[in-house]
């Protein structure tokens, strides 16, 4: 063996980088996303993300639908946090029309949207554990998420595509057993979240896989347009709910969790802490929910005046913005969505360079992207 090595002319051997196709059906890519990796041994030299497999032309489709039908399309943008998406579109139209949403509807919206945030983060927790090689947490996280989804079914009639938030309020009042359902759900949920937290957060193997991996500094993150938990993991306390309080968020007391290092573990733990904050918001909203109507507009055609608005909101994945142009008809003239996942994903190439392939999977998981929103 040694003889053979000696005979080889080491100076003139060359190694060619290998191309590795990851996705579009790779289980770690959370949807249909393809990453073309140029690897040198185990190390990623370069990465080229390919998106567009889930492109449905949602923005264009919006132009052909009446305003109340567009809500169904927004449901399907970020299909992990449907309520948050419905909400931002409804708010855009409400702002354009100058409609005041009844207080009760606002409370219901906050409760459901925050529950959706927890559901989304739970899904992230489970699948991120899976990306790092932990099989068990996903079971626990899905069990908890299933509780939330069951609650959504009781309230809105659907587990995922609700079409429950309408322009001017919500579709119908909550069911009569809403209080019982929600209080028992909150009890269970707090236990579940704590359990998931205990299961994964400080597990040595998990910490070793994620701490110091995929670090990004605040400056770069801002340049890439990061928002939401991923940005807060880099150390900037920026949350649309605090920076520009919409709806009734100024009535509640909650913290904005911030981390410092901007690595995968920080991005993970900020989300875990956010779940606790969301729970506290829901509890506050639940105790203060007033009686009254839930719908400001009657059953008439929605025809906003000519003009345009930009509305933003804090989604589980970051800041979502909707730019809506109306030409005074019953259909929008243009709807532009600023998706948070797309901006996080754009930094992927920067993040995975010079890491191991296994770490690239972890980094992609830590960005918590939803392809429905990236591709639209």
């Amino acid at each position, binding site marked *: 063996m040694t003889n053979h090595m000696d005979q080889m002319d080491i100076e003139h051997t060359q190694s060619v980088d290998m191309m590795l196709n990851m996705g579009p059906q790779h289980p770690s890519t959370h949807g249909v996303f393809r990453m073309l990796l140029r690897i040198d041994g185990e190390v990623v030299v370069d990465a080229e993300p390919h998106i567009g497999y889930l492109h449905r032309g949602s923005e264009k489709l919006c132009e052909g*639908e*009446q305003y*109340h*039908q567009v809500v*169904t*399309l927004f449901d399907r943008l970020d299909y992990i946090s449907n309520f948050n998406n419905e909400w931002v579109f409804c708010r855009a139209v409400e702002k354009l029309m100058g409609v005041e949403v009844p207080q009760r509807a606002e409370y219901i919206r906050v409760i459901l949207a925050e529950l959706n945030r927890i559901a989304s983060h739970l899904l992230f927790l489970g699948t991120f554990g899976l990306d790092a090689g932990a099989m*068990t947490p996903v079971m*626990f996280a899905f*069990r908890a998420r*299933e509780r939330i989804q*069951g609650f959504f*079914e*009781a*309230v*809105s*009639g*659907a587990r995922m*595509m609700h*079409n429950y938030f309408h322009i001017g309020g919500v*579709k119908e009042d909550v*069911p009569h057993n809403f209080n019982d359902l929600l209080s028992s759900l909150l009890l269970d949920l707090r236990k579940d979240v704590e*359990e998931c937290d*205990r*299961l*994964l*957060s*400080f*597990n*040595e*193997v*998990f*910490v070793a896989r994620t701490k110091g991996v995929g670090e990004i500094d605040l400056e770069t993150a801002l340049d890439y347009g990061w928002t939401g938990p991923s940005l807060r993991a880099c150390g900037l306390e920026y949350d649309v709910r605090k920076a520009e309080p919409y709806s009734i968020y100024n009535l509640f007391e909650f913290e904005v969790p911030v981390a410092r290092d901007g690595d995968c573990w920080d991005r993970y733990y900020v989300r875990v802490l956010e779940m606790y904050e969301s729970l506290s918001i829901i509890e506050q909203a639940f105790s203060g929910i007033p009686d009254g109507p839930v719908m400001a507009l009657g*059953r008439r055609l929605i025809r906003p005046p000519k003009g345009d608005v930009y509305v933003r909101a804090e989604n589980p994945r970051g800041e979502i913005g909707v730019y809506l142009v109306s030409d005074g008809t019953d259909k929008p003239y243009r709807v532009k969505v600023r998706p948070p996942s797309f901006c996080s994903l754009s930094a992927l190439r920067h993040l995975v360079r010079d890491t191991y392939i296994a770490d690239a999977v972890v980094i992609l998981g830590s960005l918590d992207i939803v392809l429905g929103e990236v591709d639209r």
Partner: protein
Amino acid sequence: MLGSIKGMLVTLVSTFRKPVTDQYPNKPRQVEPRYMGFPALTWDHSVGEPYCTACMVCIRQCPTQCMTATMKDNPLHKEEKSSRRKIVDVFEINLNRCILCGICVEVCNFDAIVMSHEYEHSGYERNGDRVALDGLLEMGTTYQKKTNWVPPSELKKALKDDLALKKATD
């Protein structure tokens, strides 16, 4: 080390918990009362005809354009048995295209369409999910029986009467 042990403890404790998994095909899932399954048409038992007058409101409002309908003169109206002058002749919903949004139910003025509790609708034919009037009515009557369905407009009227009564007595 401590973190892993803590995690192991969680796993150990959960070993003794009751499983939460639904044994789906053997034991169908219990759905919530508000569950939105496939849309179906309701049957007016007091007259013996569908509620639907094929007014086309839901068809125009459906975001996926998955329904069609035509209307005809109601023979029972001529015999003065029914107050509906027109009645549905042909109705079809392509359940493959339906996105279960519930808009059709919201816009219908005649209590004629409901989101049934049906959610199993896979078949072997490409067009097997294009359900015509009799199929929709069958789904609807099953739903009506299962949930003791009362037309929403009657519910609303009863609520209004209640409120009026309360006001009068106050």
